[in-house]
């Protein structure tokens, strides 16, 4: 361990850079000029990026067997020994340690890389916003937490990062805190995440109580040593608890409700936190602990089902949204669903791969959407857009590429990752595949609905914002272009075998996925033949293109159709349009109940505690003090005043002399002098005679 | 003269003679300084100035004096007669008294006190009473305000000016004016080159002490009609006037003695006779200068419009010719005489140069506001003077301890002082409670 190459040995620097600048920003950022702020923050993130790249190369320089490096800074919580559930004695140690392996490596590359691009973008996007330094301070704080999360070498430290990103997401959603909806959204995100985090924390406790360790590297061996059978209920419990946390952080059913509201935050934040990085933390975490999941098929099933349903569900809601960012938000949810589907069917690497590509094109989508909003001066409603393709060409083309990518058109990144997942899903279970397949079609439909409503057709832009429409500054366009390129070629990292590729990426990651002993492996369906795979691809391509054409028909050719359809399916449309009334349901079920509880407690506090306890005591104290007051006034003070009076009487003659007149004092002095001289003269007289 | 009378008598007679000369010449001098002032002002304002009385107004001062003496002498009732009468006398007496210790030449000095400088300072500081009492006695608000301002201003700037002088005193190592000049002769350099900043401070201070523009607030005609002189007229007024100009000459004299080498001519300590003769070029210079003036007068004489003016101009020329003759004659007399006469010439030349600067400032700078004045005095000049003093003392000590050229050390000291000056000028904030009470 101690003979690590430079970058691997200095892992801890990667999160340190953003932390440092964040501290600078939050402590004395107010006095810095926007220029300095931009340079500092972007610079620090860029440094982290350089270090990450360095770490990456030094990592793949190693033979694929031991591609893992750990750097422990210090022992963080040495909590001593305790009894495990099965009575064994274990020593609880949570050290402040960093661990890098292909998984973390991919994550930090995504985080720092995309993060850097988004920083650049933000310098342009936030240029005219107040609280510039505050924004970047939070952003860098987020970078720090996210890097801690992905670099942590134990669950507890990961949890620190987990909470950190939660906090930053809260701060950044509520960035325009003077807007009520924004602060509410922030609070909502925070609270909903609390639910998930509670689950996650319980999971951690259970893990340490069951396995006696929380270090990732030791979890696998501990499982093996513990000799847990597949489907062991305790393992399932841990896995499910973890997954509760994951649903909270990465917005899965039932805890997805906060993500759409989170769009109140500035667009770069939506891009970085709520599309590219933070919301994928759940996926990362599940993958990170896949050793546990693989021991519990039930949990895997739950994960897969939740993912698939979420994907479909969210996609259906995305179809009817009119707010450009809301559409993207729901699409994010649905894509995250894909990732969990992948994890659920055991294709963790495919999940991570989709995570990466998704980071590219969804980040791009958000940034492009931000650029559009920027262009039409803050308008977010797609019904007030249209025919922008010629006015802001760069944004248009980049966004089009992103849309193609997410829809999964052939050589784009989205196609490859998504079809990887669908293929695995098909191997596992046809139903899951069907859901994912259908969702892919809907994805294509609503993405191109977005594209067409925004860029094509007749212009529905308001008049006052009509003519100032302009392309965004360079600082915003450059990241767009870079991300566009990435979302084209990003997928080629793991070019499928059937096209003569050899999926490097998958192999690179595969060392992370613990391979259960063959004995325990449950038999999977035979590997689908190349033809089968190709056939699946054709099928999905066909559906995707169909979706695109449908969108074209509805929103370019016959723009009157959508309303007709909406009317004909009135009830269902309203149901979907109101997001299945999930928010109202939650309000009725939890929020209002919580309020009632609070009111009841408040009443109790007022009536019982204040009324009887405090006021009673107060009354008692008053009574006693009255008594002592009387004593003080008449007895104690009385005696004092008596003494004072006596002194006053006796001091009267002295006061006669002290009349406050300077000159009478001087007269007294003179009298004294005369006395002295008289005395001395008398003595001298005697001395002489 | 020395061989006419026995020295014992001479010791008594000569000072009286000098005193008489000074008292006799001073009013004339003052009058002509006024003429020069008006001429310079006119020139700077592209005018001609007095031209009527005498050629180029040469006789203007006499006319003014006559006018002043013939004007009615008014004493406002409700005025405090005793003090009203006393004040101008105090003013002018103190002004004249100061001349007692001023060495106009190596011999031309009434009394060479060994505390001469202090004496002059003391006496000229007594001059305040003339102004203050006069302002109070005339029982008028303008006068009182002028007097108060004057008192505050003088007390404040005496401190700065005195500190400025001390830097030169350190170099001379004596309080006697004569010894100071001789010290400059021995060291072969005027002290202004050692302590330029001290000179600057003293110059500003002296302008303020003589109530000249830009520090002429006590008699700021735009604010207080004529300050403490408002109620005065005729002869008493002219006494004040005389005192003011006498004071100008005094401060100029002090500056000349301490900083500009007194009666010494430039390069006094380097003697190189002209080839063939025993005359030095620089000694010949004065007579040539005056001769030039004389010739110019003769050249102008015929151009005058009126006959009388022709005559007067010619007489002026003749006067200059005589002076030139005397100066030239001194070249061949005994060195003592030469020193005496030329010393007087150089001394007066320097004094008038200094006074010319006064005039120049007056016509160049706008008047200060009172709080600005006080701030300049207390927050800039006095600290600067203190720093300058310490720096100079350090330089002297350094030369005494480690040897080396004093000039070098003093240059260093001046650099330091300059830095401090810049610092002071920079952080001199606007609010200023006028610190009158600590006049000590």
């Amino acid at each position, binding site marked *: 361990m101690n003979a690590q190459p430079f970058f691997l040995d200095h892992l801890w620097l990667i999160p340190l850079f953003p932390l440092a600048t964040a501290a600078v920003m939050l402590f004395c950022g107010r006095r810095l000029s926007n220029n300095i702020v931009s340079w500092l923050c972007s610079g620090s993130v860029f440094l982290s990026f350089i270090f990450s790249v360095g770490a990456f190369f030094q990592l793949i320089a190693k033979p694929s067997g031991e591609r893992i490096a750990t750097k422990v800074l210090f022992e963080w919580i040495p909590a001593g020994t305790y009894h495990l559930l099965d009575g064994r004695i274990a020593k609880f140690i949570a050290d402040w340690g960093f661990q890098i392996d292909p998984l973390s490596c991919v994550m930090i590359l995504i985080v720092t890389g995309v993060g850097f691009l988004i920083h650049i973008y933000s310098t342009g996007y936030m240029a005219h916003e107040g609280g510039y330094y505050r924004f970047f301070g939070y952003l860098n704080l987020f970078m720090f937490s996210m890097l801690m999360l992905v670099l942590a070498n134990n669950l507890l430290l990961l949890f620190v990062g987990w909470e950190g990103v939660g906090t930053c997401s809260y701060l950044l959603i509520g960035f325009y805190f003077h807007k009520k909806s924004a602060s509410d959204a922030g609070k909502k995100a925070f609270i909903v995440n609390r639910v998930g985090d509670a689950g996650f924390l319980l999971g951690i406790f259970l893990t340490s109580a069951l396995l006696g360790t929380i270090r990732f590297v030791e979890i696998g061996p501990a499982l093996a040593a513990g000799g847990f059978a597949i489907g062991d209920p305790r393992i399932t419990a841990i896995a499910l608890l973890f997954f509760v946390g994951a649903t909270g952080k990465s917005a899965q059913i039932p805890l997805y409700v906060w993500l759409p509201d989170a769009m109140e935050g500035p667009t770069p934040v939506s891009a970085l936190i709520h599309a590219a990085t933070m919301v994928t933390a759940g996926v990362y975490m599940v993958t990170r602990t896949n050793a546990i999941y693989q021991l519990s098929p039930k949990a895997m099933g739950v994960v897969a089902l939740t993912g698939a349903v979420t994907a479909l569900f969210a996609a259906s809601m995305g179809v009817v949204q009119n707010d450009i960012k809301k559409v993207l938000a729901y699409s994010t949810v649905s894509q995250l669903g894909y990732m969990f589907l992948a994890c659920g069917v055991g294709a963790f690497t495919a999940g991570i791969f989709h995570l990466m590509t998704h980071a590219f094109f969804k980040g791009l989508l958000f940034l492009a959407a931000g650029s559009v909003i920027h262009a039409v001066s803050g308008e977010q409603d797609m019904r007030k857009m249209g025919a922008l393709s010629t006015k802001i060409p760069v944004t248009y083309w980049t966004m089009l590429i992103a849309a193609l990518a997410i829809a999964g058109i052939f050589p784009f990144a989205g196609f490859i990752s998504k079809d990887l997942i669908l293929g695995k899903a098909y191997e596992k279970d046809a139903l899951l595949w069907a859901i994912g397949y259908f969702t892919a079609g809907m994805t294509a439909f609503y993405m191109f609905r977005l594209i067409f409503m925004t860029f094509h057709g007749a212009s529905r832009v308001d008049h006052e914002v009509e003519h100032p429409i302009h392309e965004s500054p360079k600082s915003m366009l450059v990241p767009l272009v870079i991300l566009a390129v990435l979302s084209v070629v990003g997928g080629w990292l793991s070019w499928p075998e059937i096209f003569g590729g050899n999926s490097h990426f998958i192999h690179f990651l595969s060392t992370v996925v613990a391979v259960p002993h063959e004995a325990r492996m449950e038999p999977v369906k035979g590997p689908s033949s190349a033809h089968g795979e190709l056939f699946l691809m054709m099928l999905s391509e066909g559906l995707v293109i169909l979706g695109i054409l449908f969108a074209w028909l509805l929103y370019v050719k016959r723009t009157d159709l959508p309303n007709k359809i909406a009317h004909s399916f009135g009830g269902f449309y309203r149901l979907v349009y109101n997001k299945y009334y999930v928010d109202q349901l939650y309000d009725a079920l939890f929020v209002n109940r919580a309020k009632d509880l609070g009111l009841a407690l408040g009443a109790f506090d007022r009536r019982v505690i204040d009324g009887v306890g405090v006021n009673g005591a107060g009354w008692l104290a008053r009574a006693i003090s009255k008594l002592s007051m009387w004593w003080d006034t008449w007895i104690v003070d009385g005696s004092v005043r008596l003494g004072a009076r006596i002194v006053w009487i006796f001091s009267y003659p002295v006061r006669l002399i002290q009349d*406050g*007149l300077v000159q009478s004092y001087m007269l007294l002095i003179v009298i004294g002098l005369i006395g002295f001289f008289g005395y001395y003269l008398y003595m001298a007289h005697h001395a002489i005679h | 003269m020395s061989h006419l009378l026995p020295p014992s008598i001479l010791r008594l007679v000569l000072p009286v003679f000098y005193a008489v000369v000074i008292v006799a010449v001073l009013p004339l001098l003052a009058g002509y300084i006024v003429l020069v002032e008006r001429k310079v002002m006119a020139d700077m304002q592209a005018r001609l100035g007095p031209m009527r009385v005498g050629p180029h107004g040469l006789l203007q001062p006499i006319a003014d004096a006559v006018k002043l003496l013939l004007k009615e002498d008014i004493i406002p009732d409700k005025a405090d007669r005793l003090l009203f009468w006393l004040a101008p006398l105090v003013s002018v007496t103190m002004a004249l008294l100061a001349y007692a210790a001023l060495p106009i030449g190596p011999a031309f000095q009434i009394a060479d006190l060994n505390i001469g400088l202090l004496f002059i300072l003391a006496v000229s500081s007594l001059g305040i009473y003339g102004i203050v009492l006069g302002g109070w006695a005339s029982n008028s608000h303008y006068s009182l305000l002028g007097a108060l301002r004057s008192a505050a201003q003088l007390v404040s700037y005496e401190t700065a000016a005195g500190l400025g002088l001390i830097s030169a005193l350190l170099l001379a190592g004596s309080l006697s004016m004569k010894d100071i000049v001789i010290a400059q002769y021995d060291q072969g350099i005027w002290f202004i080159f050692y302590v330029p900043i001290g000179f600057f401070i003293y110059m500003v201070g002296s302008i303020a002490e003589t109530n000249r523009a830009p520090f002429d607030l006590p008699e700021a005609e735009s604010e207080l009609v004529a300050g403490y002189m408002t109620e005065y007229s005729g002869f008493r007024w002219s006494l004040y006037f005389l005192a003011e100009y006498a004071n100008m000459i005094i401060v100029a004299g002090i500056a000349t003695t301490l900083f500009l080498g007194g009666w010494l001519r430039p390069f006094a300590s380097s003697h190189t006779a002209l080839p063939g003769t025993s005359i030095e070029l620089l000694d010949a210079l004065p007579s040539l200068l005056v001769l030039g003036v004389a010739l110019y007068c003769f050249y102008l004489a015929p151009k005058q419009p009126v006959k009388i003016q022709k005559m007067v101009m010619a007489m002026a020329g003749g006067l200059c010719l005589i002076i030139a003759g005397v100066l030239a004659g001194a070249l061949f007399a005994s060195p003592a005489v030469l020193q005496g006469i030329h010393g007087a010439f150089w001394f007066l030349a320097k004094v008038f140069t200094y006074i010319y600067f006064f005039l120049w400032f007056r016509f160049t700078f706008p008047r200060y506001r009172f709080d600005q004045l006080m701030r300049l005095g207390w927050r800039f000049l006095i600290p600067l003077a203190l720093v300058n003093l310490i720096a100079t003392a350090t330089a002297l000590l350094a030369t005494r301890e480690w040897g080396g050229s004093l000039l070098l050390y003093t240059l260093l000291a001046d650099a330091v002082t300059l830095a401090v000056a810049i610092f002071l000028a920079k952080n001199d904030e606007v609010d200023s409670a006028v610190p009158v009470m600590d006049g*000590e």
Partner: protein
Amino acid sequence: MVPVDHYLWLSLALFTIGVIGVLTRRNVIIILMSIELILNAVNINLVAFSHMFGNVDGQVFAIFIITDAAAEAAVGLGIILAFFRNRETLLADEMDMLKW
């Protein structure tokens, strides 16, 4: 050659006058000036004796006394100014708040 005691007479006279002034005048400023007078009387003594003993210590003390006089005058007059601003009077026997 004036004998020393004449200086003492002089200083005694000035001292007495000063004391009378201090004790009897109502105007605070006059009182202060009388004090200055007393200090002066002392100075005369010092100078006389210093000359008598032929060393300058007495004069040095006199200088110190003058310094004290300066300080006293500055502070005293400052107090008088402040008092005058508040009470509009200069009479010593109206300044009698400092009692009991």
